[in-house]
Protein backbone atom coordinates (compact mmCIF):
# COMPACT_ATOMS: atom_id res chain seq x y z
CA UNK A 1 0.00 0.00 0.00
CA UNK A 2 2.78 2.33 1.03
CA UNK A 3 4.72 1.51 -2.12
CA UNK A 4 1.71 2.21 -4.32
CA UNK A 5 1.05 5.47 -2.50
CA UNK A 6 4.68 6.55 -2.85
CA UNK A 7 4.62 5.63 -6.54
CA UNK A 8 1.42 7.63 -7.06
CA UNK A 9 2.90 10.68 -5.32
CA UNK A 10 6.08 10.29 -7.35
CA UNK A 11 4.13 10.16 -10.61
CA UNK A 12 2.06 13.20 -9.69
CA UNK A 13 5.21 15.18 -8.90
CA UNK A 14 6.96 14.02 -12.06
CA UNK A 15 4.00 14.88 -14.28
CA UNK A 16 3.31 18.21 -12.64
CA UNK A 17 6.97 19.17 -13.11
CA UNK A 18 6.86 17.84 -16.65
CA UNK A 19 3.90 20.08 -17.33
CA UNK A 20 5.65 23.08 -15.77
CA UNK A 21 8.77 22.40 -17.79
CA UNK A 22 6.76 23.04 -20.96
CA UNK A 23 4.73 25.99 -19.70
CA UNK A 24 6.04 29.47 -20.35
CA UNK A 25 5.52 32.79 -18.58
CA UNK A 26 3.37 35.31 -20.46
CA UNK A 27 6.06 38.01 -20.46
CA UNK A 28 8.69 35.62 -21.78
CA UNK A 29 6.21 34.47 -24.44
CA UNK A 30 5.55 38.07 -25.54
CA UNK A 31 9.24 38.96 -25.59
CA UNK A 32 9.99 35.86 -27.64
CA UNK A 33 7.18 36.73 -30.09
CA UNK A 34 8.48 40.30 -30.36
CA UNK A 35 11.99 39.02 -31.00
CA UNK A 36 10.74 36.75 -33.78
CA UNK A 37 8.80 39.60 -35.39
CA UNK A 38 11.72 42.03 -35.00
CA UNK A 39 14.08 39.54 -36.63
CA UNK A 40 11.70 39.30 -39.58
CA UNK A 41 11.23 43.05 -39.84
CA UNK A 42 14.95 43.76 -39.52
CA UNK A 43 16.05 41.16 -42.05
CA UNK A 44 16.79 41.59 -45.73
CA UNK A 45 13.45 40.31 -46.94
CA UNK A 46 11.13 41.71 -49.56
CA UNK A 47 7.82 43.12 -48.30
CA UNK A 48 5.94 40.04 -49.52
CA UNK A 49 8.39 37.68 -47.79
CA UNK A 50 8.12 39.72 -44.61
CA UNK A 51 4.35 39.51 -44.70
CA UNK A 52 4.43 35.75 -45.16
CA UNK A 53 6.82 35.34 -42.22
CA UNK A 54 4.65 37.59 -40.06
CA UNK A 55 1.57 35.57 -40.97
CA UNK A 56 3.38 32.43 -39.89
CA UNK A 57 4.24 34.01 -36.53
CA UNK A 58 0.63 35.18 -36.09
CA UNK A 59 -0.78 31.71 -36.81
CA UNK A 60 1.39 30.28 -34.01
CA UNK A 61 1.01 33.00 -31.39
CA UNK A 62 -2.36 34.73 -31.89
CA UNK A 63 -5.78 33.31 -31.02
CA UNK A 64 -7.25 34.26 -34.39
CA UNK A 65 -10.44 32.28 -33.87
CA UNK A 66 -10.98 33.77 -30.41
CA UNK A 67 -10.48 37.32 -31.72
CA UNK A 68 -12.86 36.54 -34.56
CA UNK A 69 -15.59 35.47 -32.13
CA UNK A 70 -14.97 38.47 -29.89
CA UNK A 71 -15.15 40.83 -32.89
CA UNK A 72 -18.60 39.51 -33.77
CA UNK A 73 -19.92 40.42 -30.30
CA UNK A 74 -23.56 39.53 -29.72
CA UNK A 75 -23.98 38.89 -33.46
CA UNK A 76 -22.17 35.56 -33.21
CA UNK A 77 -25.18 34.04 -31.46
CA UNK A 78 -27.38 34.67 -34.52
CA UNK A 79 -25.19 32.93 -37.09
CA UNK A 80 -26.02 29.62 -38.74
CA UNK A 81 -23.31 26.93 -38.78
CA UNK A 82 -22.59 27.63 -42.45
CA UNK A 83 -22.28 31.36 -41.82
CA UNK A 84 -20.02 30.71 -38.84
CA UNK A 85 -17.72 28.46 -40.85
CA UNK A 86 -17.56 30.96 -43.68
CA UNK A 87 -16.88 33.74 -41.18
CA UNK A 88 -14.07 31.80 -39.49
CA UNK A 89 -12.39 31.20 -42.85
CA UNK A 90 -12.69 34.74 -44.18
CA UNK A 91 -11.87 36.34 -40.83
CA UNK A 92 -8.67 34.36 -40.55
CA UNK A 93 -7.57 35.57 -44.02
CA UNK A 94 -8.62 39.13 -43.20
CA UNK A 95 -6.81 39.10 -39.87
CA UNK A 96 -3.56 37.72 -41.25
CA UNK A 97 -3.51 40.25 -44.07
CA UNK A 98 -4.38 43.16 -41.82
CA UNK A 99 -1.93 42.08 -39.10
CA UNK A 100 1.02 41.52 -41.42
CA UNK A 101 0.27 44.65 -43.42
CA UNK A 102 0.23 46.80 -40.26
CA UNK A 103 3.49 45.39 -38.96
CA UNK A 104 5.32 45.22 -42.29
CA UNK A 105 5.50 49.04 -42.30
CA UNK A 106 7.85 49.03 -39.31
CA UNK A 107 11.53 48.31 -39.61
CA UNK A 108 13.67 47.45 -36.61
CA UNK A 109 11.02 48.16 -33.97
CA UNK A 110 12.55 48.25 -30.50
CA UNK A 111 10.04 46.90 -28.02
CA UNK A 112 10.94 46.26 -24.42
CA UNK A 113 8.74 44.16 -22.13
CA UNK A 114 8.40 45.94 -18.79
CA UNK A 115 6.00 44.02 -16.54
CA UNK A 116 3.05 41.66 -16.40
CA UNK A 117 -0.24 41.69 -14.53
CA UNK A 118 -2.03 38.39 -13.99
CA UNK A 119 -5.75 39.26 -14.15
CA UNK A 120 -7.05 35.75 -13.57
CA UNK A 121 -6.28 32.16 -14.54
CA UNK A 122 -7.17 32.90 -18.16
CA UNK A 123 -5.59 36.29 -18.78
CA UNK A 124 -2.34 38.11 -18.18
CA UNK A 125 -1.65 41.61 -19.42
CA UNK A 126 1.97 42.13 -20.44
CA UNK A 127 3.16 45.74 -20.63
CA UNK A 128 5.81 46.85 -23.08
CA UNK A 129 7.19 50.02 -24.65
CA UNK A 130 7.89 50.70 -28.31
CA UNK A 131 10.87 53.06 -28.37
CA UNK A 132 10.24 56.44 -29.98
CA UNK A 133 11.95 57.54 -33.17
CA UNK A 134 12.33 60.88 -34.93
CA UNK A 135 8.98 60.41 -36.63
CA UNK A 136 7.06 58.67 -33.87
CA UNK A 137 6.72 59.17 -30.11
CA UNK A 138 7.30 56.38 -27.60
CA UNK A 139 4.27 54.07 -27.52
CA UNK A 140 3.01 51.93 -24.66
CA UNK A 141 1.73 48.57 -25.85
CA UNK A 142 -0.05 46.03 -23.68
CA UNK A 143 -0.68 42.45 -24.74
CA UNK A 144 -3.69 40.48 -23.55
CA UNK A 145 -2.39 36.94 -23.32
CA UNK A 146 -4.81 34.03 -23.03
CA UNK A 147 -3.21 31.71 -20.50
CA UNK A 148 -5.85 29.04 -20.04
CA UNK A 149 -3.53 26.44 -21.53
CA UNK A 150 -0.13 27.27 -20.03
CA UNK A 151 1.59 25.20 -22.69
CA UNK A 152 -0.06 27.08 -25.52
CA UNK A 153 -0.24 30.78 -24.69
CA UNK A 154 -2.00 32.95 -27.25
CA UNK A 155 -2.29 36.70 -27.81
CA UNK A 156 -5.87 37.95 -27.90
CA UNK A 157 -5.50 41.72 -28.00
CA UNK A 158 -3.06 44.56 -28.38
CA UNK A 159 -3.82 47.64 -26.30
CA UNK A 160 -1.96 50.63 -27.69
CA UNK A 161 -1.79 53.62 -25.33
CA UNK A 162 -4.88 52.24 -23.62
CA UNK A 163 -6.83 51.70 -26.84
CA UNK A 164 -7.83 48.13 -27.57
CA UNK A 165 -7.43 46.99 -31.17
CA UNK A 166 -9.84 44.08 -30.62
CA UNK A 167 -12.51 46.39 -29.25
CA UNK A 168 -12.00 48.84 -32.11
CA UNK A 169 -12.39 45.99 -34.58
CA UNK A 170 -15.48 44.72 -32.77
CA UNK A 171 -17.10 48.15 -33.00
CA UNK A 172 -16.12 48.46 -36.65
CA UNK A 173 -17.72 45.08 -37.45
CA UNK A 174 -20.80 46.01 -35.46
CA UNK A 175 -21.11 49.27 -37.39
CA UNK A 176 -20.91 47.46 -40.73
CA UNK A 177 -23.57 44.93 -39.69
CA UNK A 178 -25.88 47.59 -38.21
CA UNK A 179 -25.67 49.88 -41.21
CA UNK A 180 -26.75 46.93 -43.40
CA UNK A 181 -29.95 46.05 -41.54
CA UNK A 182 -28.18 43.59 -39.25
CA UNK A 183 -27.09 41.36 -42.13
CA UNK A 184 -23.94 39.36 -41.48
CA UNK A 185 -23.54 38.91 -45.26
CA UNK A 186 -22.49 42.56 -45.49
CA UNK A 187 -19.62 41.93 -43.07
CA UNK A 188 -18.61 38.76 -44.91
CA UNK A 189 -18.53 40.70 -48.18
CA UNK A 190 -16.46 43.51 -46.64
CA UNK A 191 -14.00 41.00 -45.23
CA UNK A 192 -13.71 39.17 -48.56
CA UNK A 193 -13.23 42.46 -50.42
CA UNK A 194 -10.48 43.47 -48.00
CA UNK A 195 -8.67 40.17 -48.52
CA UNK A 196 -8.60 40.53 -52.31
CA UNK A 197 -7.91 44.26 -52.51
Amino acid sequence: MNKKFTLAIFLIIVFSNFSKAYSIEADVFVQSTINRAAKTLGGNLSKEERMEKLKEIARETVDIEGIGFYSLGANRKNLTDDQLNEYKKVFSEYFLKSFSSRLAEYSNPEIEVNSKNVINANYTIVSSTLAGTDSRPEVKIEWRVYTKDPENLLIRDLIIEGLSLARTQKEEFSSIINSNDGKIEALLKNLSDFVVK
Partner: protein
Amino acid sequence: MKKFLIISLVSLMLTSSANADTDGENNISNKNPGPVKDCFESVNRVTFKFNQVLDNIIFEPVAKTYRILPSPVRAGTGNALNNLSSLVTIPNNILQGEFVKAGVNTGRFVVNTTIGVVGIFDVAEKIGFPEYEKEDYGQTLGVMGVGAGCYIVLPVLGPSTVRDTAGSFANVLGGDAWYNVTVANDTQHVSDFDYWASRASTGINFRAKNIDSFNNLEKNSMDFYASVRSLYLQDRQRKIENSKATTETMDDGDWEEIESQ
Protein backbone atom coordinates in the same frame (compact mmCIF):
# COMPACT_ATOMS: atom_id res chain seq x y z
CA MET B 1 -35.47 82.62 -24.70
CA LYS B 2 -32.95 81.58 -27.35
CA LYS B 3 -30.41 80.80 -24.64
CA PHE B 4 -33.00 78.74 -22.79
CA LEU B 5 -33.75 76.72 -25.92
CA ILE B 6 -30.07 76.04 -26.54
CA ILE B 7 -29.51 75.00 -22.92
CA SER B 8 -32.57 72.75 -23.02
CA LEU B 9 -31.45 71.14 -26.25
CA VAL B 10 -27.93 70.52 -24.96
CA SER B 11 -29.29 69.16 -21.65
CA LEU B 12 -31.60 66.83 -23.52
CA MET B 13 -28.80 65.51 -25.67
CA LEU B 14 -26.46 65.20 -22.69
CA THR B 15 -28.87 63.22 -20.59
CA SER B 16 -30.41 61.10 -23.31
CA SER B 17 -29.76 57.48 -22.49
CA ALA B 18 -28.92 55.55 -25.57
CA ASN B 19 -28.17 52.32 -27.25
CA ALA B 20 -25.07 52.69 -29.31
CA ASP B 21 -24.77 51.63 -32.87
CA THR B 22 -21.53 50.14 -31.72
CA ASP B 23 -22.91 47.25 -29.74
CA GLY B 24 -23.32 49.43 -26.67
CA GLU B 25 -19.67 49.28 -25.75
CA ASN B 26 -18.77 52.90 -25.15
CA ASN B 27 -19.51 54.04 -21.64
CA ILE B 28 -17.85 57.30 -20.88
CA SER B 29 -18.89 58.81 -17.62
CA ASN B 30 -17.68 57.91 -14.16
CA LYS B 31 -20.98 58.00 -12.31
CA ASN B 32 -23.47 57.76 -15.12
CA PRO B 33 -22.32 54.89 -17.27
CA GLY B 34 -24.32 54.48 -20.45
CA PRO B 35 -23.49 53.72 -24.02
CA VAL B 36 -22.77 56.64 -26.34
CA LYS B 37 -25.27 56.98 -29.14
CA ASP B 38 -24.27 58.10 -32.60
CA CYS B 39 -27.53 60.07 -32.98
CA PHE B 40 -26.42 62.01 -36.03
CA GLU B 41 -24.49 59.28 -37.79
CA SER B 42 -25.39 60.23 -41.35
CA VAL B 43 -24.46 63.90 -40.78
CA ASN B 44 -21.38 62.83 -38.83
CA ARG B 45 -20.23 60.65 -41.70
CA VAL B 46 -20.55 63.55 -44.14
CA THR B 47 -18.61 65.85 -41.78
CA PHE B 48 -16.02 63.11 -41.31
CA LYS B 49 -15.57 62.90 -45.11
CA PHE B 50 -15.27 66.68 -45.29
CA ASN B 51 -12.61 66.59 -42.56
CA GLN B 52 -10.73 63.86 -44.40
CA VAL B 53 -10.63 66.00 -47.57
CA LEU B 54 -9.47 68.98 -45.51
CA ASP B 55 -6.86 66.80 -43.86
CA ASN B 56 -5.55 65.55 -47.21
CA ILE B 57 -5.35 69.06 -48.64
CA ILE B 58 -4.12 71.03 -45.63
CA PHE B 59 -3.38 69.29 -42.34
CA GLU B 60 -1.43 66.25 -43.46
CA PRO B 61 0.88 68.20 -45.82
CA VAL B 62 1.47 70.83 -43.11
CA ALA B 63 2.10 68.10 -40.53
CA LYS B 64 4.55 66.40 -42.89
CA THR B 65 6.39 69.67 -43.40
CA TYR B 66 6.39 70.27 -39.65
CA ARG B 67 7.94 66.83 -39.19
CA ILE B 68 10.92 67.89 -41.29
CA LEU B 69 11.88 70.41 -38.59
CA PRO B 70 14.73 69.28 -36.34
CA SER B 71 13.63 67.09 -33.46
CA PRO B 72 14.62 69.62 -30.71
CA VAL B 73 12.46 72.30 -32.40
CA ARG B 74 9.44 69.97 -32.46
CA ALA B 75 10.08 68.85 -28.88
CA GLY B 76 10.35 72.47 -27.73
CA THR B 77 7.12 73.41 -29.52
CA GLY B 78 5.33 70.43 -27.99
CA ASN B 79 6.62 71.35 -24.52
CA ALA B 80 5.53 74.98 -24.85
CA LEU B 81 2.04 73.93 -26.00
CA ASN B 82 1.76 71.45 -23.14
CA ASN B 83 2.80 74.19 -20.75
CA LEU B 84 0.01 76.45 -22.05
CA SER B 85 -2.50 73.64 -21.65
CA SER B 86 -1.70 73.62 -17.91
CA LEU B 87 -3.83 76.76 -17.70
CA VAL B 88 -6.86 74.61 -18.49
CA THR B 89 -5.63 71.52 -16.65
CA ILE B 90 -5.11 73.25 -13.28
CA PRO B 91 -8.68 74.59 -12.84
CA ASN B 92 -9.97 71.19 -13.92
CA ASN B 93 -7.77 69.44 -11.36
CA ILE B 94 -9.41 71.68 -8.74
CA LEU B 95 -12.94 71.08 -10.06
CA GLN B 96 -12.31 67.35 -9.93
CA GLY B 97 -11.11 67.61 -6.32
CA GLU B 98 -7.54 66.69 -7.31
CA PHE B 99 -5.90 69.39 -5.19
CA VAL B 100 -2.49 67.73 -4.95
CA LYS B 101 -2.34 67.40 -8.74
CA ALA B 102 -3.42 71.04 -9.07
CA GLY B 103 -0.51 72.03 -6.80
CA VAL B 104 1.96 69.87 -8.71
CA ASN B 105 0.78 71.25 -12.06
CA THR B 106 0.97 74.82 -10.80
CA GLY B 107 4.55 74.15 -9.68
CA ARG B 108 5.30 72.61 -13.07
CA PHE B 109 3.85 75.63 -14.88
CA VAL B 110 5.87 78.11 -12.79
CA VAL B 111 9.12 76.16 -13.21
CA ASN B 112 8.70 75.58 -16.94
CA THR B 113 7.50 79.11 -17.73
CA THR B 114 10.44 80.71 -15.92
CA ILE B 115 13.47 78.41 -15.90
CA GLY B 116 12.14 76.49 -18.91
CA VAL B 117 11.85 79.68 -21.03
CA VAL B 118 8.07 79.94 -21.62
CA GLY B 119 7.79 76.18 -21.46
CA ILE B 120 10.16 75.31 -24.31
CA PHE B 121 12.21 73.15 -21.95
CA ASP B 122 10.44 70.71 -19.69
CA VAL B 123 12.66 71.42 -16.70
CA ALA B 124 10.00 70.12 -14.29
CA GLU B 125 10.27 66.63 -15.75
CA LYS B 126 14.05 66.72 -15.44
CA ILE B 127 13.89 67.59 -11.75
CA GLY B 128 11.44 64.80 -10.99
CA PHE B 129 7.89 66.12 -11.40
CA PRO B 130 5.45 63.29 -12.19
CA GLU B 131 4.25 62.72 -15.76
CA TYR B 132 1.91 65.47 -16.96
CA GLU B 133 -1.69 64.53 -17.71
CA LYS B 134 -3.95 67.00 -19.50
CA GLU B 135 -7.45 67.64 -18.19
CA ASP B 136 -10.30 69.58 -19.79
CA TYR B 137 -13.83 70.69 -18.92
CA GLY B 138 -15.41 67.81 -20.83
CA GLN B 139 -13.49 65.37 -18.63
CA THR B 140 -14.54 67.27 -15.52
CA LEU B 141 -18.20 67.05 -16.55
CA GLY B 142 -17.68 63.31 -17.07
CA VAL B 143 -16.07 62.92 -13.65
CA MET B 144 -19.05 64.80 -12.17
CA GLY B 145 -21.34 62.18 -13.69
CA VAL B 146 -22.63 64.05 -16.73
CA GLY B 147 -23.33 61.59 -19.53
CA ALA B 148 -21.50 61.98 -22.83
CA GLY B 149 -24.68 62.58 -24.84
CA CYS B 150 -24.48 61.92 -28.52
CA TYR B 151 -21.27 61.37 -30.45
CA ILE B 152 -20.64 64.19 -32.90
CA VAL B 153 -18.05 65.00 -35.52
CA LEU B 154 -17.25 68.69 -35.65
CA PRO B 155 -16.10 70.34 -38.86
CA VAL B 156 -12.31 70.81 -38.75
CA LEU B 157 -12.08 69.89 -35.05
CA GLY B 158 -13.09 66.24 -35.50
CA PRO B 159 -14.60 63.70 -33.08
CA SER B 160 -16.36 64.88 -29.93
CA THR B 161 -19.47 64.32 -27.86
CA VAL B 162 -22.14 66.83 -26.90
CA ARG B 163 -20.72 66.93 -23.38
CA ASP B 164 -17.14 67.45 -24.56
CA THR B 165 -18.24 70.18 -26.98
CA ALA B 166 -20.22 71.90 -24.22
CA GLY B 167 -17.15 71.56 -21.98
CA SER B 168 -14.92 73.23 -24.53
CA PHE B 169 -17.18 76.31 -24.47
CA ALA B 170 -15.97 76.83 -20.90
CA ASN B 171 -12.56 77.69 -22.36
CA VAL B 172 -13.97 80.74 -24.11
CA LEU B 173 -16.22 81.68 -21.19
CA GLY B 174 -13.37 82.45 -18.82
CA GLY B 175 -12.08 78.93 -18.12
CA ASP B 176 -8.82 79.29 -20.02
CA ALA B 177 -6.43 81.93 -18.70
CA TRP B 178 -4.49 81.87 -22.00
CA TYR B 179 -7.68 82.72 -23.93
CA ASN B 180 -8.48 85.43 -21.37
CA VAL B 181 -5.19 87.25 -21.84
CA THR B 182 -5.07 86.89 -25.61
CA VAL B 183 -8.57 87.07 -27.04
CA ALA B 184 -10.94 88.13 -24.26
CA ASN B 185 -8.81 90.97 -22.93
CA ASP B 186 -6.71 93.42 -24.83
CA THR B 187 -3.17 93.12 -23.48
CA GLN B 188 -0.05 94.73 -24.85
CA HIS B 189 2.12 91.62 -25.02
CA VAL B 190 -0.11 88.95 -26.55
CA SER B 191 -2.89 89.08 -29.11
CA ASP B 192 -5.71 87.02 -30.63
CA PHE B 193 -3.22 85.72 -33.17
CA ASP B 194 -1.11 84.12 -30.43
CA TYR B 195 -4.10 82.19 -29.14
CA TRP B 196 -5.25 80.89 -32.52
CA ALA B 197 -1.67 80.14 -33.57
CA SER B 198 -1.22 78.07 -30.42
CA ARG B 199 -4.45 76.18 -31.11
CA ALA B 200 -3.45 75.49 -34.71
CA SER B 201 0.02 74.40 -33.61
CA THR B 202 -1.49 71.98 -31.10
CA GLY B 203 -3.49 70.38 -33.90
CA ILE B 204 -0.50 70.19 -36.25
CA ASN B 205 1.74 68.82 -33.49
CA PHE B 206 -0.81 66.08 -32.75
CA ARG B 207 -1.27 65.27 -36.44
CA ALA B 208 2.50 65.13 -37.03
CA LYS B 209 2.96 62.67 -34.18
CA ASN B 210 0.27 60.40 -35.59
CA ILE B 211 0.79 60.50 -39.37
CA ASP B 212 1.89 56.87 -39.63
CA SER B 213 -0.69 55.54 -37.18
CA PHE B 214 -3.53 57.37 -38.96
CA ASN B 215 -2.43 56.21 -42.40
CA ASN B 216 -2.01 52.66 -41.14
CA LEU B 217 -5.43 52.69 -39.51
CA GLU B 218 -7.10 54.10 -42.60
CA LYS B 219 -5.42 51.57 -44.87
CA ASN B 220 -6.43 48.65 -42.68
CA SER B 221 -9.97 49.71 -41.80
CA MET B 222 -13.09 48.56 -43.60
CA ASP B 223 -15.07 51.35 -41.90
CA PHE B 224 -12.59 54.07 -40.99
CA TYR B 225 -15.31 56.27 -39.51
CA ALA B 226 -16.34 53.54 -37.04
CA SER B 227 -12.71 52.85 -36.11
CA VAL B 228 -12.02 56.52 -35.34
CA ARG B 229 -15.25 56.77 -33.31
CA SER B 230 -14.29 53.73 -31.28
CA LEU B 231 -10.78 54.99 -30.62
CA TYR B 232 -11.98 58.47 -29.65
CA LEU B 233 -14.57 57.14 -27.20
CA GLN B 234 -12.13 54.65 -25.68
CA ASP B 235 -9.61 57.43 -25.20
CA ARG B 236 -12.14 59.71 -23.51
CA GLN B 237 -13.29 56.93 -21.20
CA ARG B 238 -9.74 56.29 -20.12
CA LYS B 239 -9.07 59.98 -19.53
CA ILE B 240 -12.26 60.51 -17.55
CA GLU B 241 -11.47 57.56 -15.32
CA ASN B 242 -7.92 58.90 -14.95
CA SER B 243 -6.87 55.33 -15.31
CA LYS B 244 -3.56 53.96 -16.42
CA ALA B 245 -4.48 50.39 -15.64
CA THR B 246 -5.88 48.68 -18.71
CA THR B 247 -7.94 46.28 -16.62
CA GLU B 248 -9.90 49.13 -15.03
CA THR B 249 -11.37 50.35 -18.29
CA MET B 250 -11.84 47.11 -20.16
CA ASP B 251 -14.92 44.99 -20.13
CA ASP B 252 -13.90 41.35 -19.96
CA GLY B 253 -17.47 40.08 -20.24
CA ASP B 254 -17.32 39.11 -23.89
CA TRP B 255 -13.87 37.62 -23.62
CA GLU B 256 -14.98 35.36 -20.81
CA GLU B 257 -17.60 33.71 -23.02
CA ILE B 258 -15.08 32.79 -25.69
CA GLU B 259 -13.46 29.40 -25.44
CA SER B 260 -11.29 28.64 -28.37
CA GLN B 261 -8.83 26.29 -26.65
